[in-house]
């Protein structure tokens, strides 16, 4: 059966727009698993990202990251708390390109849905194809593209939705290490050209530090904010840079991992959801 269409409560107009950004305060959300038991996915999470900011969310598996993105994209409503969101587009973990459409038609999907005629939608998507290194693959179907190219097409589809907020769910998780590094560099450049508010969910702490303005560290289920790390470093960042490594250690210790876990944890334990939320507020 198709997924039933739910009312899009969080992004309905009566909820004030957070100035092309997102803001969650004390948001909790539970869902029912297959056996009908209630599972707390998020517990009192407060987060925000201002216009043009890239917020990375890291956490162990099952920390409610996907729930968080679905809340922001209006696919779910919070049980408690206040969520203020500009319209957001989702780039799912799997690229979910439509196999019967060419790369160009997939990229132009949002424009077609918005009501543009096919030729016009394709023309607008084609303009960005060269920029994203996809030139010459307009007519190729998804099964003819490499993993990295599919992700780029999926990103372009998300970008062309024209929404001010982009939610990227582990966009590079399924790629090999070399392609992932290329794609991270590419994403950085793409966002410089087309600034958006981005929520990047990732398992990869290093990726988060290299790309984000701020990194939110979530705890295992139920997801709570463990730490929020400001990344005030010039771009492009190298993963071997000492400052990047230091911040990575901080994030890892907040996750309860990493070489410095013992001492860092001691320092970080005071930083639970409530207190950490106030940190890192951008100017």
């Amino acid at each position: 059966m198709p997924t039933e269409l739910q009312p899009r409560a969080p992004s309905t107009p009566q909820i004030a727009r957070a100035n092309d950004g997102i803001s969650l305060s004390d948001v909790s959300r539970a869902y029912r698993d297959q056996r009908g038991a209630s599972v707390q996915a998020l517990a009192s999470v407060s987060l925000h990202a201002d216009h043009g900011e890239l917020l990375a969310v890291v956490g162990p598996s099952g920390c409610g990251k996907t729930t968080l993105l679905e809340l922001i994209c209006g696919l779910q409503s919070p049980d408690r708390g206040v969520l203020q969101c500009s319209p957001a587009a989702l780039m799912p973990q799997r690229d979910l390109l439509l196999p019967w459409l060419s790369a160009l038609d997939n990229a132009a999907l949002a424009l077609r849905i918005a009501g543009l005629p096919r030729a016009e939608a394709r023309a607008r998507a084609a303009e960005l194809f060269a920029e994203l290194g996809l030139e010459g693959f307009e007519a190729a179907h998804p099964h003819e593209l490499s993993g990295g190219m599919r992700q780029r097409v999926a990103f372009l589809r998300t970008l062309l939705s024209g929404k001010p907020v982009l939610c990227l769910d582990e966009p590079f998780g399924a790629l090999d290490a070399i392609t992932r590094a290329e794609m991270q560099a590419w994403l950085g450049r793409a966002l410089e050209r087309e600034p958006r508010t981005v929520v990047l969910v990732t398992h990869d702490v290093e990726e988060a530090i290299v790309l984000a303005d701020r990194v939110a560290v979530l705890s295992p289920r139920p997801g709570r904010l463990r730490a929020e790390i400001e990344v005030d470093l010039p771009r492009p960042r190298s993963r071997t840079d000492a400052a990047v490594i230091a911040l990575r250690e901080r994030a890892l210790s907040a996750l309860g991992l990493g070489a410095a876990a013992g001492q860092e944890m001691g320092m970080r334990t005071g930083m639970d959801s409530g207190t950490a939320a106030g940190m890192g507020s951008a100017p």
Partner: protein
Amino acid sequence: MKRRLVNAMPAIVLVAALLGAWEIYADSGATSSSILPAPHTIAQSLWSNAGLLSHNLSVTAEEVALGLLLALALGFALGVLIHLSPALRRACYPLTVGSQAVPIAVIAPLLVFLLGFGLLPKLIVIVLICFFPVVVTTVDGLAAVDPDQLKLLRTLDASRLQAFRFAELPAALPAAISGARIAVTVGVIGAYIAESQTATSGAYAGLGHEINADLSSLQTARAYAAAVVLFAFAIACFYTLSEVERRLAPWANQSRGDLR
């Protein structure tokens, strides 16, 4: 071409072996040639009656083609309706399944009684037989669309209709044709039953009528020859639809090496 020949080799060998065994058995005199003619007698009959048989084939082919197209259209439409409305699904599905249990050989003469000897009763029989696999594969095809895909379309603000158009319809169309591919072989049997029940006169009343008329006048070899034509026609239909499906949904055939 060479690869195709290599691919067809097992089928050719099997058919040759079966024909050989049949030939030996028929020539041994264990049965009368009016009951089981030898393959070479059937081949001779096929050759000398080529005109008659091809005429009758064109009649049967027209019925099957029309019936299949109708079944495809009706089956697809019903599949879509069943998919979109759970109430309709509960209302129609049992009836649809039940329609397959209706003994066609009983229904066919009744239809003739009601509708006369024209094309219509034959079409109804063929459609009745063919539309069920189309409905089932369409419903399955529509339901097999990735729920995450539909979720994604929702984040792009797609309406229900747009989700249907961009995601569900293209997924279901090749599935429906796959159903038609299953249906066409039984559809040929349906055509035979319909013709043997409905045609009362005329030399060109279809292969089904031809087979029946020949059997009752002890022209067994010609009846077998007509059956061979019917057999070849069913195989041709099946592979034609496979090709149509492959053309329509090239993405779905990436990992499927069958039936070519």
